[in-house]
Structure formats: C-alpha cells, structure tokens
C-alpha cells in the first residue's frame, strides 16, 4: 500500500477520540495486577465485557491497527496505535485480550502461521471471539524452554499430544493455546520441537486451577491426554519449532511495548503504579513524612525512567539500531522496578502492611502485594534468563556451558521426579 492511501494520524486520532467518548466507559486507574479482586463469576463477566469491547473496536475499524487488512486489521502504523493508546487513557479497554493473545500469540501466527491459519484465527482474535494462551512452561522447568517434555506423535493427518503445561494464567476462561511439543527425541533438544495450535477446551485437555500465594486462582495447569490435533494446526516445519520459539520469545519480551497491543497510555506508568505509592501514603496519613516523600519520588522516578527506556528500546528495535534481543534490557528493568515498587508501598504502609482492616483504603493490599513481589521477575521468563540474553547476545560474552548441546534429547540428564 502506498503511503498516500493511509489515513493520516491526526484524522485517525480524531476519529478514535470521537468513537471512544461515544462508546466506552470512563474508568479509574486500571491495574494490570494479579490481585485477588473478583469472584469467578465477576471474572467471567469481566472477560465477557472485554470480548464485547474488542468486538466494538473491530466494528468501529479500531482493532488490529498494525495488522494487514487481509486479516481483518487496519494496515496502519505504530504511530496510529500510539494515537489510539493515547486516546484510550482513562477509558475501559480489553485488558485480558492483550497479552498473551495479541502478543506473543497473534504475532507468532502472523510471522510463522500458514495463510489458512492466519485467515482462520486473526480475524476471530480481532473480533474478541478467540482468547489465546501460551502453553510453554512445563512442570519439569520453565527457563529451559527447549527442554519441553510434552510429546506429539504423528498419526496420519493428525498428531497425538501427551504431557502437561503449567503456569498458564487465565487458561480456564480462554479458547486457544500455542503449544510447544517434542516431536523427536533422538536429536539435540532444539532440533526436535514443533509448535501446534491447541483448542484449550478440547476432549483430552484437563485444565486445573492452581492457587497462588495471595489466593488468586488464575494460574492453571493443563494435562494433555491423547489430544488429537490436525496437521493443518501445526505452525512451522516439523522439528523446526525452535525457529518459531525464538520469534515467540522475542514477541513475549516485547510485552506491552508491542505495536500489536492496545493499552491506554499511562496504564503501566502513572495511573497504576507510582501514584499508588502516593495513595498508600495518603491513606496512611504520611504524606508529610520526608522519608515517605523520598519513596514516592523514587517510585515515580522509576516509572518515568522505565517508560523512556521502553521507548528507547522500542525505537531502537524498530529502526534496527538495536537487535531484537535488546528487549531483554526492558525485561530486567520492568521486573526489578515492579518488585521495588511493592517494597516501597509495603514500607510506606508500616504496620498496616502486617495487619489491616477493610476500611484502610489503599493500605489493604500492601502486604499481599509484597508477598507476590517476585512475580514480576519470574513471569514471562525470569530476569536471570534475560540477564543471560543481555550478557551473551547483546554484550557478546561467552555462552554458559550446557550438558545437553550435542546430546540426543532422550539421553539428557533430567531431574528424577519426586
């Protein structure tokens, strides 16, 4: 498409603004949090509303801004997406559909899927009909992604999957998963993997919910018993799943930085984070305490810097002055800073972090959030793995020695199951 056919950003912005004001509900700060805030019924209502909002965006020509029109998108640019994000500030949005549905899952379909797979799923995702999950981690270990034990065995035009995936946030209300499975045990680990599209509520898939230490039950484990998947639902070549996997990890590290994701500007910065340090201080009656003000300033500083860092990395990758692996820098920053923020709030809350009453306002969540502090350094790949990427692939330092490199996966040492 030549540039003069593309709607200009300002016109797009006006159109988006008018539509948003007309159709969406204004909301307070939205926390992208794992707090246990809703009952199952309320969660399902919220998921349904997310789907509805996504459908409304689609009908208004505001879904899939950077996705080609042949797959139901708008074929516009990241600048248009940014304009939409700006205009959405202060309004409801389809929170649960962004990550991992738009990235990494839709991004992987777009990059590696067959034409048929793209046409089947991308428009459905844009209409809010399909919510996707990543079925990557396994009970035997998540960091060593290529060490997947879930197996897929060919049976004519179908594959039969067996094994277990775990730590899948929200799988109980989702529709599809991108699943990494082992198709060859006689070659080194990276060469025997294949990626499949998996309907989550298919016979043979059992979804079991796991309670997190704060009481949240969004985490799930899936048990796959003779699940049949047609070969047409295979993504990429047989045994070449690691090629897909590498792109997959890249899109995962992009997270909310991805131009495929629609989030109101400020969702990760001001509204949900540093201003909550201020809210906690207010409800604790400590706004005048200089040590507390120092902490409020620190929280805000980290958010502001984080936003500029993401912008720098995003621009660097887009203009190819930085490699895609640079996204690991953003990963480390976001993880460490989110954990620090929880500590800051816990610190400001004082004894109300230990014991609180329902009428304590913002103080009521500081203790539990602090317990959950490390999730930001684990989910989406741990910060240790991101540090490996930075040191080895951004700075060129030697790779860690492994004991599974040239060994058939069958013979690789594995933990004895306890």
């Amino acid at each position: 498409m030549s540039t003069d056919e593309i709607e200009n950003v300002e016109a797009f912005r006006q159109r988006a603004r008018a539509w948003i004001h007309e159709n969406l509900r204004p909301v307070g700060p939205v926390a992208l949090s794992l707090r246990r805030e809703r009952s199952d019924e309320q969660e399902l209502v919220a998921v349904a509303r997310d789907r509805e909002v996504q459908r409304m965006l689609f009908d208004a020509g505001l879904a899939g801004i950077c996705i080609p029109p042949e797959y139901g998108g708008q074929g516009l640019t990241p600048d248009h997406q940014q304009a939409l994000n700006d205009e959405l500030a202060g309004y409801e949005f389809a929170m649960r559909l962004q990550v991992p549905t738009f990235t990494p899952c839709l991004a992987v379909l777009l990059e590696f899927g067959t034409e048929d797979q793209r046409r089947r799923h991308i428009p459905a995702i844009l209409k809010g009909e399909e919510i996707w999950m990543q079925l990557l981690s396994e009970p035997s270990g998540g960091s060593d992604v290529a060490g997947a034990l879930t197996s897929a065995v060919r049976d004519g035009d179908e594959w039969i999957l067996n094994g277990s995936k775990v730590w899948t946030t929200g799988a109980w209300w989702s529709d599809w998963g991108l699943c990494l499975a082992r198709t060859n045990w006689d070659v080194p680990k990276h060469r025997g993997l294949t990626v499949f599209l998996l309907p989550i509520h298919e016979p043979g898939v059992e979804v079991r919910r796991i309670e997190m230490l704060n009481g949240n039950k969004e985490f799930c484990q899936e048990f796959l018993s003779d699940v049949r998947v047609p070969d047409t639902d295979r993504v990429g070549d047989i045994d070449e799943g690691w090629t897909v996997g590498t792109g997959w990890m890249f899109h995962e590290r992009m997270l909310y930085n991805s131009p495929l994701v629609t989030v109101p500007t400020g969702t990760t910065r001001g509204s949900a984070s540093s201003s909550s340090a201020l809210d906690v201080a207010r409800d604790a009656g400590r706004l005048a305490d200089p040590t507390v003000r120092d902490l409020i300033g620190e929280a805000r500083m980290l958010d502001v810097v984080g936003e500029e860092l993401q912008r720098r990395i995003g621009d660097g990758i887009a203009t190819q002055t930085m490699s895609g692996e640079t996204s690991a820098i953003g990963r480390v920053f976001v993880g460490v800073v989110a954990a620090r923020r929880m500590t800051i709030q816990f610190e400001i809350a004082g004894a109300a972090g230990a014991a609180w009453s329902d009428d304590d306002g913002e103080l009521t969540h500081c203790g539990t959030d602090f317990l959950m502090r490390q999730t930001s350094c684990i989910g989406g790949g741990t910060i240790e793995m991101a540090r490996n990427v930075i040191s080895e692939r951004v700075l060129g330092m030697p790779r860690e020695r492994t004991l599974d490199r040239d060994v058939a996966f069958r013979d690789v040492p594995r933990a004895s199951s306890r």
Partner: protein
Amino acid sequence: MQDLSADQQFFRGTTSKFLDEQMPTGELRRRRDTQAGFDEKYWHRGADLGWTSLLVGEHLGGGTVSGDGLVDLSLVAYEFGRHAAPGPLVPDNIVAATLAAAGTDAHAGLIGDLLSGGSIASWALSEPPPHDRLDDVTLDIGVDGGDVALNGVKRPVESARQADHLLVTGRTGTGLTQVLVPTDAAGVSVEPMRTVDLTRRFDRVIFDDVRLPARTVIGEVGGAGGQVERQLQMALVLVNAECVGAMQTGFDMTLEWMFDRYSFGRPLASYQELKHRLADMKTWLEASHAISDAAAAAVGSGSPDGAELVSAAKAFIGEYGTQLLQDCVQLHGGIGVTFDHDLHLFLRRHTVNRALYGTPAEHRQRIADLVEQQKGVVA
C-alpha cells in the same frame, strides 16, 4: 541520543575527535595540579567548535545545529563526560543563555566575548551548608537607591578564578534576584576549594558588601524565580549528559576488561555472576541514556513535563550511575583503585556531578511534590 541528524553526528564527532587529541587521559593526569585545569587556547578552540554558542540566538552571534541548542549542547556535554574533559562548560553556557534571554543590549559585547571563548563566566548558585540544599538561597541582595548590595557566600562555584563575571543568584526579600558581578569588583574575594574531580576547579566566593549599579541586575529584582528554575533545568540536562558519557566510558572499559582478564583459566566474561552484573549495568546505562535524552528534549523544547523528567534523570543517573561506576571499580579488582588506571577519572566526574545541582534524594523530593500537584491531593 538515538536519532541524531547527520549534522548532529558530525558536530558531536568533531568534539569527540578534538578531545581525543587534546585531552588524552595522560594529559588529564598532567593537569592534576595546574590552577585552571585547562588553558586559554583549549577553551578558544572549543569555542570555535561551538561549545559556547548553542544557547544564544543567531542575532547575538550564537546558533544551533538542529534548532534545539540545548539538545545540541547536551551532545558536547556527553563527550565531556566520556573524556572527563576540563572546562566550565555548564556554568559558562548557563550564564550566556541567561544574558541572551534576560540581559539588555549592553550585554551584547560580553556575550560576544563568552561565545568566542575570550572571556569566561560562571554561575554562583549554591551556598555553604546548611544552606547548600537546592532552593535554599540566602545571599542577600539589597536595593539601595540606584545600587544593589550583595552580602553572603557562595560555594562551590565552578572556575570562579578563571571567570571574569559571575552570575550571582541571591534573595531580595522573599524573591530571587540575579546580578552579574565582575570578579574584580570591590568586596569580592575568591578562595580555592578542593575537589575529587581531577580536571575541574571549584572556589568559595565571598561577597562583602559588594556594591554595583542596578543595571547589573539580570531580569527583575525579586522576580527571577522562573529564570533560575529554567537555568537549573538546563544545567541539570548538561550534568546528566556528562554523567551518562562518563558511565559509557567506564562501562566500555569494564566490558573490555572482562574479556582481557583471566582467572582459573577462563576469561572473567565467562562467569555467570559477572555476566549478570554486566547485564544489570547495561540495563542502568541504557535507562540513563533514555531518560537523559528525554529530559534534554523536553527541557529544550520547553515542554511542561521537563521539570519531572529532568529531576527523574538527575535522581536516577545520580543513584544508578554511581552504582555502575563503583561496580566498574569492583570488577577491575585492585587495579580499579589505582591512580594509574583511567577508570577513576570517570568515577570522579560522575561523583562530583551527582552532588551538584541537587542530590538524588533532593530530586526525589521534587518529584514527590510534582506527583502530588498532578494528583491534586490534599495532605
């Protein structure tokens, strides 16, 4: 900066090359005990390269490379940090900018001299403890008929002994006033101070009933608050850029060292503990670049979020940059704390800048004030 124009890249490259040639680290060491840390010829040639003219409009003989002089000057400041270069880059430019913005026609000659490097000026802002906190200005500027009278002490003042003029920020009643004081005026005395920076010099300046005609006041008597805030933000942009330059050099040296140094038959670079340290340092470095650039652009263009960004930058770079450079020392082991190794030159530059124009803690407090204002919360 990531998206520099070809002109900006060339401009920065010229200063980088000049400093490579003129101020190699051996030369910096040789200047350790010299009075100024730099000589006239060096400053003149720097002025020819554009170091002094970027914050002054074309009608006064200045001009920018990109249309945003502060962003352009931050590129020079970055190179100053990268080379730990001598010279009063920050205060000299701040005075030139202020004279251009708030001076009168009578200042055109002096501005010309500053731009050519023929004369040097410095900004006298901070005061002795306990008044060395940001915003705490007590030097008294009284109005007496057609004169003003200055009484008080300023410290540290960069390159005061090399300067012909000082822009002195003082207080008249409850408001701020700025006066351009010739350093040879009666009642001004300048005493050298000691510092950890090898190449920059700082002095204590005493104003003992210094009487000057009222026309030496720059801007409004008692009404200079906005101007001082603007000066402060510009100075912060420049010291931040210097700090990022110093961090970049320290980091580059350390990364190289990781490959050169062996222990137990392996390069240091092969140990995961050290790789992860470098990964964190790289993260803080990139974050510092990002926030420094963003603050320069915001203050340069007069955007309303300039105040917050520049304080976030000072707080972050001050805190994490110190951590980064001290980690560089740690990873060098014993050699990292020797005078012969170059690393300390950059640690020194950063350490001094961390404490100038407000510490990280003071800037965190400023940010808290801004957050509160934005939220409109009542305490």
